[in-house]
């Protein structure tokens, strides 16, 4: 019964995540950018913009420049999350890539780093009055969900194990539309439930900053307003109309 419920939960969550993200990306792509507003100093070429976006995504450059502490914890969290996610690839392929097996043990420590960094970010929201004032319930929800995921994951590693062979065959089953038996281990159910919930709310939450960064005009525009006239498609239409 639980196996079926979780299977459905995951299918729905995946569907919502994929469709939701697609819709959002379409929406972002269609949003007009009537003006050139790149944050200065901005790159003068397309390659430069690509490089800037890369630095933004890989190093969180603008966050680093604005706030070192948030950068520190945020960066640790994201890097750790990346490692943890890579470590979880092993549950979704029957023949695990060698490099996944290689970094798999490092992911355990990343789990701790992730938990600590998230705790620091949560404490920041609670302790600093200014931040507390502007924090909405959804801000806390994201942090608590991620903390719950990290804590339940670590609990399975260090406190009470679950049968990961069964978990993996269940996951492999889901990939080929078969529902196997999911171990009814409390930490596992919390872990997977929280992950599914996070996937579901991803397309309607602030977590969209992950894709939004690529569409933000202050980051993705080339600083060539003098060399090349910037004109939005809809404005072009109007202008052409005037000419006629």
């Amino acid at each position, binding site marked *: 019964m639980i196996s079926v419920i979780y*299977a459905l939960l995951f299918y729905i969550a995946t*569907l919502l995540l994929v469709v939701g993200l697609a819709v959002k990306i379409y929406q972002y792509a269609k949003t007009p950018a009537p003006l050139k507003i790149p944050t200065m100093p901005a790159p003068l070429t397309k390659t430069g913009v690509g490089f800037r976006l890369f630095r933004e995504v890989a190093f969180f450059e603008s966050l680093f420049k604005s706030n070192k502490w948030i950068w520190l914890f945020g960066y640790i969290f994201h890097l750790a999350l990346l490692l943890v996610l890579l470590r979880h690839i092993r549950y979704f392929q029957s023949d695990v890539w060698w490099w996944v097996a290689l970094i*798999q043990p490092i992911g355990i420590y990343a789990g701790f780093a992730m938990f600590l960094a998230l705790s620091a970010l949560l404490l920041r929201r609670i302790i600093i009055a200014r931040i507390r004032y502007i924090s909405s319930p959804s801000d806390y929800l994201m942090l608590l969900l991620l903390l719950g995921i990290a804590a339940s994951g670590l609990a399975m590693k260090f406190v009470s194990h*679950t*049968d990961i062979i069964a978990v*993996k*065959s269940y996951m492999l089953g889901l990939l080929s*539309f078969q529902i*196997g038996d999911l171990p009814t281990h409390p930490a596992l159910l919390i872990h997977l439930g929280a992950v599914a919930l996070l996937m579901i709310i991803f397309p309607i939450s602030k977590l969209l900053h992950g894709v939004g960064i690529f569409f933000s005009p202050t980051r993705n525009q080339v600083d060539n307003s003098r060399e090349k006239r910037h004109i939005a498609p809809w404005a072009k239409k109007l202008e052409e109309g005037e000419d006629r």
Partner: protein
Amino acid sequence: MKRLLVLLMVAFTLVSTSTLAGDLYPDIPKATGKPHPEGNEYMRINHMDMLKHDRDTVVRQGVRDEDNSLAQCISCHVVKDEDNKPVTIKSEEHFCRVCHDFAAVKLDCFSCHNSVPTTPLQSSALYPHSNTELDGLLAYLEGVAK
């Protein structure tokens, strides 16, 4: 959206009834000897803690309970190749590797320990067990009482 969900569920029940789950489980080699009284699932989940606990008591206190030794694990869980020779950890068929490979979990025991039974156990023939059956039971009960 609702229609989509219903469609999905229907597709699901169709798919899940048509194929049987379970082919995706690793093919775990059968062992010789009596089954673990705790059950295989218990061993699957907890063997690492048991091994770690026993390794410390053996090395630190000299508690050499042969039945719980890694050598005993290996001797029951030995996998033989076509020539009826035990396969070492280099083979993907090795009992430990079947699951460890499947789950991509590093296996460290055999960087020092032998991965096949070494027969005859040179010392075991001379092994006078320090505790008789009764002692063992009493000791066990003592342990439980603690």
